[in-house]
Protein backbone atom coordinates (compact mmCIF):
# COMPACT_ATOMS: atom_id res chain seq x y z
CA UNK A 1 0.00 0.00 0.00
CA UNK A 2 1.35 3.42 -0.90
CA UNK A 3 1.23 6.50 1.32
CA UNK A 4 -1.32 8.02 -1.10
CA UNK A 5 -3.58 4.95 -0.88
CA UNK A 6 -3.44 4.92 2.91
CA UNK A 7 -4.16 8.66 2.99
CA UNK A 8 -7.24 8.16 0.82
CA UNK A 9 -8.38 5.12 2.79
CA UNK A 10 -8.23 6.93 6.13
CA UNK A 11 -9.05 10.39 4.85
CA UNK A 12 -5.74 11.80 6.05
CA UNK A 13 -4.79 15.42 5.48
CA UNK A 14 -1.55 15.82 3.56
CA UNK A 15 0.61 18.44 5.28
CA UNK A 16 3.81 17.95 3.28
CA UNK A 17 4.12 15.93 0.13
CA UNK A 18 7.45 14.38 -0.84
CA UNK A 19 6.78 11.01 -2.47
CA UNK A 20 3.25 9.76 -1.91
CA UNK A 21 3.89 6.78 -4.19
CA UNK A 22 6.25 5.35 -1.59
CA UNK A 23 5.22 1.92 -0.33
CA UNK A 24 4.41 1.47 3.35
CA UNK A 25 6.09 -1.67 4.67
CA UNK A 26 4.84 -1.59 8.27
CA UNK A 27 3.83 0.70 11.08
CA UNK A 28 5.24 2.07 14.31
CA UNK A 29 3.57 4.01 17.14
CA UNK A 30 5.62 6.13 19.56
CA UNK A 31 6.54 9.60 20.75
CA UNK A 32 9.90 9.09 22.44
CA UNK A 33 12.28 9.96 19.65
CA UNK A 34 15.27 7.85 20.65
CA UNK A 35 13.00 4.88 21.17
CA UNK A 36 11.38 5.32 17.77
CA UNK A 37 14.66 5.91 16.00
CA UNK A 38 16.15 2.68 17.26
CA UNK A 39 13.06 0.54 16.65
CA UNK A 40 11.09 1.86 13.68
CA UNK A 41 11.97 0.07 10.48
CA UNK A 42 12.68 1.45 7.05
CA UNK A 43 9.41 2.07 5.13
CA UNK A 44 7.33 2.17 8.33
CA UNK A 45 4.37 4.52 8.65
CA UNK A 46 5.12 6.33 11.91
CA UNK A 47 2.15 7.32 14.07
CA UNK A 48 2.99 10.03 16.59
CA UNK A 49 1.90 13.31 18.16
CA UNK A 50 5.38 14.82 17.84
CA UNK A 51 5.30 17.45 15.12
CA UNK A 52 8.63 19.18 15.80
CA UNK A 53 11.83 19.42 13.74
CA UNK A 54 13.42 16.58 15.63
CA UNK A 55 10.62 14.22 14.62
CA UNK A 56 11.41 15.09 11.01
CA UNK A 57 15.09 14.30 11.61
CA UNK A 58 14.20 10.97 13.22
CA UNK A 59 11.95 10.07 10.29
CA UNK A 60 14.78 10.81 7.85
CA UNK A 61 17.34 8.83 9.82
CA UNK A 62 15.02 5.88 10.41
CA UNK A 63 13.90 6.09 6.76
CA UNK A 64 10.16 6.02 7.50
CA UNK A 65 7.74 6.10 4.58
CA UNK A 66 5.75 8.85 6.25
CA UNK A 67 4.77 10.49 9.53
CA UNK A 68 1.11 10.53 10.51
CA UNK A 69 0.31 13.10 13.19
CA UNK A 70 -2.50 11.60 15.24
CA UNK A 71 -5.39 13.35 16.98
CA UNK A 72 -4.75 16.54 15.01
CA UNK A 73 -1.38 17.10 16.71
CA UNK A 74 0.13 20.21 15.10
CA UNK A 75 3.10 20.33 12.75
CA UNK A 76 5.41 23.20 13.79
CA UNK A 77 6.16 25.73 11.06
CA UNK A 78 9.92 25.05 11.15
CA UNK A 79 9.20 21.31 11.09
CA UNK A 80 7.07 21.80 7.96
CA UNK A 81 9.94 23.62 6.26
CA UNK A 82 12.39 20.92 7.28
CA UNK A 83 10.07 18.16 6.04
CA UNK A 84 9.80 19.91 2.68
CA UNK A 85 13.58 20.34 2.48
CA UNK A 86 14.33 16.77 3.51
CA UNK A 87 11.58 15.08 1.52
CA UNK A 88 9.40 13.73 4.30
CA UNK A 89 5.72 12.91 3.81
CA UNK A 90 3.74 14.29 6.76
CA UNK A 91 0.05 13.58 7.12
CA UNK A 92 -2.52 14.33 9.78
CA UNK A 93 -5.63 12.72 11.20
CA UNK A 94 -8.19 13.29 13.93
CA UNK A 95 -8.02 9.57 14.78
CA UNK A 96 -5.75 8.19 17.48
CA UNK A 97 -2.70 6.01 16.91
CA UNK A 98 -4.52 2.81 17.83
CA UNK A 99 -7.31 3.35 15.30
CA UNK A 100 -4.91 4.30 12.52
CA UNK A 101 -2.45 1.48 13.22
CA UNK A 102 -5.31 -1.02 13.36
CA UNK A 103 -6.59 0.18 10.00
CA UNK A 104 -3.12 -0.07 8.49
CA UNK A 105 -2.49 -3.48 10.01
CA UNK A 106 -5.70 -4.77 8.48
CA UNK A 107 -4.56 -4.02 4.94
CA UNK A 108 -0.85 -4.82 5.08
Amino acid at each position, binding site marked *: MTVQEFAEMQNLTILTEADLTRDIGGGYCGDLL*SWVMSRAQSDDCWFTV*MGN*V*NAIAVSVLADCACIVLCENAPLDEDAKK*KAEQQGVNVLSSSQNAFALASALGAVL
Partner: protein
Amino acid sequence: MSLIELHYDVPGDDFTRAGEASGDVKRQLKQLGFDPAKIRNVVIALYEGEINMVIHAGGGEIDVSIDPDCIRMVLRDQGPGIPDVALAMQEGYSTAPDNVRALGFGAGMGLPNIKKYTNDMQIETEIGVGTTMYLRVDV
Protein backbone atom coordinates in the same frame (compact mmCIF):
# COMPACT_ATOMS: atom_id res chain seq x y z
CA MET B 1 44.63 8.98 6.42
CA SER B 2 41.09 7.87 5.78
CA LEU B 3 39.28 7.77 2.46
CA ILE B 4 37.04 10.67 3.51
CA GLU B 5 37.25 12.86 6.61
CA LEU B 6 34.38 15.09 7.67
CA HIS B 7 34.14 17.71 10.39
CA TYR B 8 31.03 19.26 11.94
CA ASP B 9 30.44 21.90 14.60
CA VAL B 10 27.34 21.20 16.68
CA PRO B 11 25.78 24.36 18.10
CA GLY B 12 24.54 24.19 21.68
CA ASP B 13 20.90 24.60 22.73
CA ASP B 14 19.69 24.63 19.13
CA PHE B 15 17.42 21.67 18.60
CA THR B 16 16.43 22.91 15.18
CA ARG B 17 19.94 22.20 13.88
CA ALA B 18 20.52 18.94 15.71
CA GLY B 19 20.66 16.20 13.12
CA GLU B 20 22.44 18.21 10.44
CA ALA B 21 25.69 16.28 10.85
CA SER B 22 23.90 12.90 10.92
CA GLY B 23 21.84 13.84 7.88
CA ASP B 24 24.91 14.91 5.93
CA VAL B 25 26.83 11.75 6.88
CA LYS B 26 23.85 9.68 5.78
CA ARG B 27 23.82 11.37 2.37
CA GLN B 28 27.56 10.88 1.91
CA LEU B 29 27.49 7.21 2.90
CA LYS B 30 24.52 6.61 0.63
CA GLN B 31 26.36 8.19 -2.30
CA LEU B 32 29.38 6.00 -1.55
CA GLY B 33 27.17 2.92 -1.78
CA PHE B 34 27.44 1.60 1.79
CA ASP B 35 24.95 -1.00 3.03
CA PRO B 36 21.76 0.84 4.17
CA ALA B 37 21.66 -1.22 7.40
CA LYS B 38 25.19 -0.07 8.28
CA ILE B 39 24.36 3.52 7.36
CA ARG B 40 21.40 3.34 9.73
CA ASN B 41 23.67 2.18 12.56
CA VAL B 42 26.08 5.04 11.94
CA VAL B 43 23.46 7.77 11.78
CA ILE B 44 21.47 6.58 14.80
CA ALA B 45 24.62 6.58 16.93
CA LEU B 46 25.66 9.94 15.54
CA TYR B 47 22.28 11.58 16.03
CA GLU B 48 22.11 10.41 19.63
CA GLY B 49 25.56 11.88 20.14
CA GLU B 50 24.52 15.18 18.55
CA ILE B 51 21.43 15.39 20.73
CA ASN B 52 23.48 14.67 23.85
CA MET B 53 25.83 17.50 22.93
CA VAL B 54 22.92 19.90 22.46
CA ILE B 55 21.10 18.87 25.65
CA HIS B 56 23.98 18.47 28.05
CA ALA B 57 27.14 20.07 26.75
CA GLY B 58 26.34 23.33 24.97
CA GLY B 59 27.40 21.85 21.64
CA GLY B 60 30.64 20.31 20.47
CA GLU B 61 32.53 18.95 17.50
CA ILE B 62 32.25 15.80 15.44
CA ASP B 63 34.87 14.19 13.22
CA VAL B 64 33.92 11.33 10.95
CA SER B 65 36.42 9.15 9.11
CA ILE B 66 35.11 6.93 6.35
CA ASP B 67 37.11 3.90 5.27
CA PRO B 68 36.07 0.93 3.16
CA ASP B 69 35.90 -1.36 6.22
CA CYS B 70 34.71 0.96 9.00
CA ILE B 71 33.31 4.35 9.91
CA ARG B 72 34.96 6.07 12.87
CA MET B 73 33.39 8.97 14.73
CA VAL B 74 34.89 11.19 17.40
CA LEU B 75 32.43 13.39 19.33
CA ARG B 76 34.09 15.97 21.52
CA ASP B 77 32.45 18.45 23.87
CA GLN B 78 33.48 20.78 26.65
CA GLY B 79 30.41 20.12 28.74
CA PRO B 80 30.10 19.21 32.41
CA GLY B 81 31.31 15.61 31.97
CA ILE B 82 29.47 12.44 33.00
CA PRO B 83 29.73 11.73 36.76
CA ASP B 84 28.81 8.03 36.51
CA VAL B 85 29.26 6.50 33.06
CA ALA B 86 27.95 3.08 34.10
CA LEU B 87 24.73 4.66 35.34
CA ALA B 88 24.39 6.80 32.20
CA MET B 89 24.74 3.65 30.10
CA GLN B 90 21.64 2.12 31.70
CA GLU B 91 18.54 2.21 29.51
CA GLY B 92 15.98 4.59 31.00
CA TYR B 93 18.39 6.62 33.12
CA SER B 94 18.17 10.28 32.14
CA THR B 95 19.19 13.66 33.49
CA ALA B 96 17.43 15.60 30.72
CA PRO B 97 15.33 18.55 31.94
CA ASP B 98 11.55 18.69 31.47
CA ASN B 99 11.67 21.11 28.53
CA VAL B 100 13.83 18.61 26.66
CA ARG B 101 11.51 15.73 27.53
CA ALA B 102 8.60 17.70 26.11
CA LEU B 103 10.37 17.59 22.74
CA GLY B 104 10.41 13.80 22.81
CA PHE B 105 13.93 13.34 24.15
CA GLY B 106 15.22 12.30 27.54
CA ALA B 107 14.03 8.70 27.43
CA GLY B 108 17.39 7.55 28.73
CA MET B 109 18.15 5.82 25.45
CA GLY B 110 20.99 7.99 24.15
CA LEU B 111 24.13 6.22 25.29
CA PRO B 112 22.51 2.74 25.24
CA ASN B 113 21.49 3.32 21.61
CA ILE B 114 24.99 4.46 20.72
CA LYS B 115 26.42 1.29 22.27
CA LYS B 116 23.80 -0.88 20.56
CA TYR B 117 24.50 0.48 17.09
CA THR B 118 28.29 0.61 17.15
CA ASN B 119 30.94 -2.10 17.18
CA ASP B 120 33.12 -0.17 19.57
CA MET B 121 32.40 2.72 21.92
CA GLN B 122 34.92 4.38 24.22
CA ILE B 123 34.10 7.30 26.51
CA GLU B 124 36.64 9.65 28.06
CA THR B 125 35.03 12.08 30.45
CA GLU B 126 36.22 14.50 33.10
CA ILE B 127 33.99 16.54 35.37
CA GLY B 128 34.08 20.20 34.42
CA VAL B 129 36.28 19.54 31.41
CA GLY B 130 34.20 17.61 28.92
CA THR B 131 33.51 14.31 27.22
CA THR B 132 34.96 12.63 24.16
CA MET B 133 33.38 9.57 22.60
CA TYR B 134 35.18 7.34 20.13
CA LEU B 135 32.82 5.23 18.04
CA ARG B 136 33.40 2.66 15.33
CA VAL B 137 30.94 0.94 13.07
CA ASP B 138 32.32 -1.92 10.96
CA VAL B 139 30.90 -2.05 7.46
